[in-house]
């Protein structure tokens, strides 16, 4: 066994080797528990500060698993705040568009109007109500920023702050291109599959040579036929890998040209040969990003339902396109990443169809699928804790 294989084996000994139950990957009851135990009480990445560039800007984010949308604002004071996007009069959804700039937010039903800090500014004929404006602010949601990334936490009293939650990754993320990003390319797809099945696809390389035989050329070969990572690391609920690259794989002619342009700008931005260029950061529960300056790629894997997931992929860029060459380099980086993702989507759906038939009771993870096992172990421990807490409180499990 090679050195990387030996390291993976050592980790697996800690995390277990047994088969993993299949039902958590498709059943509604387990999904409901995940929402309660994880997604309603964990920091979730929902955007980037470059989407709120100035005071008065805002964005709206759907969180279908919680049956809510969030209104995230940057107030005149420059502070970023998040609220449930719901009028406190009679609960009507407040903002319907996806974002932009407004001086205030007015409910279409009875014209209650709110400031960027959530306070009720005005309401017609308010003296006939039996309450005070100061008690009618928008319901706040915890929000914080690390490396330019905006995270929210639906727990009214989060158990830990964002930086504590991210642990040592917080400091590392701050050194990546994303922390200085001012804009991004984006593509989106929805997949008829459970979110864990979707996320797992992006944290194992075992599938690369089969699903990406053409687009994944530099990811496999030369004594590493499956393209397994150089190293794994674990950081509380989070996990990472150091990506292996086949340096002997010859790029195609236009690819070499476009990559060359990209590399030149990475040098100019001070990221060339950066220590974290090959790092993959898996931020629990449903976000990951690469440390690469030429493919500064992130993906949010958002559960919509037990069998439906929305993936938002972004390549975060520093500055507007400076010249034609930079625009071409960025276009190619985005188009290549999209080509690869298109190939993943169909097989993820096939996985969900197979599992949701109930035909198999267990799935198997090999040692180089250890990040998938770590995600399951982490989720399942939180679900079990939640069930124990409810049982102790006298609720049904």
């Amino acid at each position, binding site marked *: 066994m090679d050195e990387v294989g030996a390291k993976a084996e050592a980790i697996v000994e800690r995390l277990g080797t047994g088969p993993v139950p299949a039902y958590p990957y498709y059943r509604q009851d387990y999904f409901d528990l995940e929402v309660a135990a994880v997604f309603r009480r964990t920091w979730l990445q929902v955007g980037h500060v470059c989407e709120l560039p100035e005071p008065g800007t805002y964005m709206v984010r759907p969180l279908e698993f919680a049956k809510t949308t969030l209104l995230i604002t940057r107030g005149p004071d420059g502070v970023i705040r998040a609220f449930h996007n719901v009028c406190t009069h009679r609960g009507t959804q407040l903002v319907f568009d996806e974002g932009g700039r407004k001086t205030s937010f007015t409910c279409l039903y009875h014209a209650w109007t709110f400031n960027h800090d959530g306070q009720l500014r005005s309401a017609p004929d308010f003296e006939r109500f039996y309450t005070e404006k100061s008690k009618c602010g928008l319901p706040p949601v915890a929000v914080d920023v690390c490396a330019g990334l905006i995270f929210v936490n639906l727990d009214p009293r989060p158990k830990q702050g964002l930086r504590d939650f991210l642990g040592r990754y917080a400091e590392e993320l701050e050194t990546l291109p994303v922390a200085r990003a001012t*804009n*991004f*390319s*984006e*593509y*989106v*797809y*929805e997949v008829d599959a459970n979110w864990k099945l979707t996320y797992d696809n992006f944290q194992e390389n075992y599938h690369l040579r089969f699903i990406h035989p*053409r*687009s994944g*050329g530099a990811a496999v070969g030369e004594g590493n036929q499956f393209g397994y990572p150089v190293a794994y690391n674990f950081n509380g609920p989070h996990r990472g890998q150091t990506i292996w690259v086949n340096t002997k794989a010859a790029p*195609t*002619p*236009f*690819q070499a*040209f*476009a990559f060359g*342009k990209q590399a030149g700008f990475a040098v100019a931005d001070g990221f060339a040969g950066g220590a974290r260029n090959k790092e993959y950061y898996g931020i629990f529960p449903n976000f990951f990003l690469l440390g690469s300056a030429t493919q500064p790629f992130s993906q949010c894997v958002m559960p919509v339902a037990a069998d439906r997931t929305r993936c938002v992929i972004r*390549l975060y*860029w520093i500055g*507007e*396109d*400076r*010249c*034609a*060459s930079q*625009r*071409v380099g*960025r*276009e*190619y980086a*985005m*188009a*290549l990443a*999209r*080509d690869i*993702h*298109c*190939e993943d*989507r*169909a097989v993820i759906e096939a996985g969900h169809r197979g599992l949701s038939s109930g035909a198999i009771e267990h799935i198997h993870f090999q040692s180089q699928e250890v990040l998938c096992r770590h995600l399951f172990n982490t989720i399942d421990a939180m679900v079990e804790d939640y069930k124990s807490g409810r049982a102790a409180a006298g609720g049904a499990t």
Partner: protein
Amino acid sequence: MNAQAAAGRLPPGFEALEPFVEHWALAGSANRAQARDTSTESDRVAFYRAGLTLAPAALDYLDRKPLSELDEQDRRLLSLTLSLCHAALAVETQGVDEPKHAKMRGHVRITRGSDKRDA
């Protein structure tokens, strides 16, 4: 469009790309990706071959000006070079699998390009 009517849509020196202006010279990443999806194999390959030869000269030429100062001819040349990213993936990478791959791409929507000035 005949060659005479098409002439002059690109800066001097890039006449070989004139036949591809109509289909490929588009603003916006999503539109350029769609041009790949709706192209024929022979058109893609012809565009790729002509584009690959001229791409270094095209960017050398375009990089002499700030993006905001590109004129209409320059902008067409830039759009063509950007579309070449998509055509190159089809020709260099996907090859005979391109028709199968095109079906997969239909589910993955480009919602934002790298710069809002290109739309």
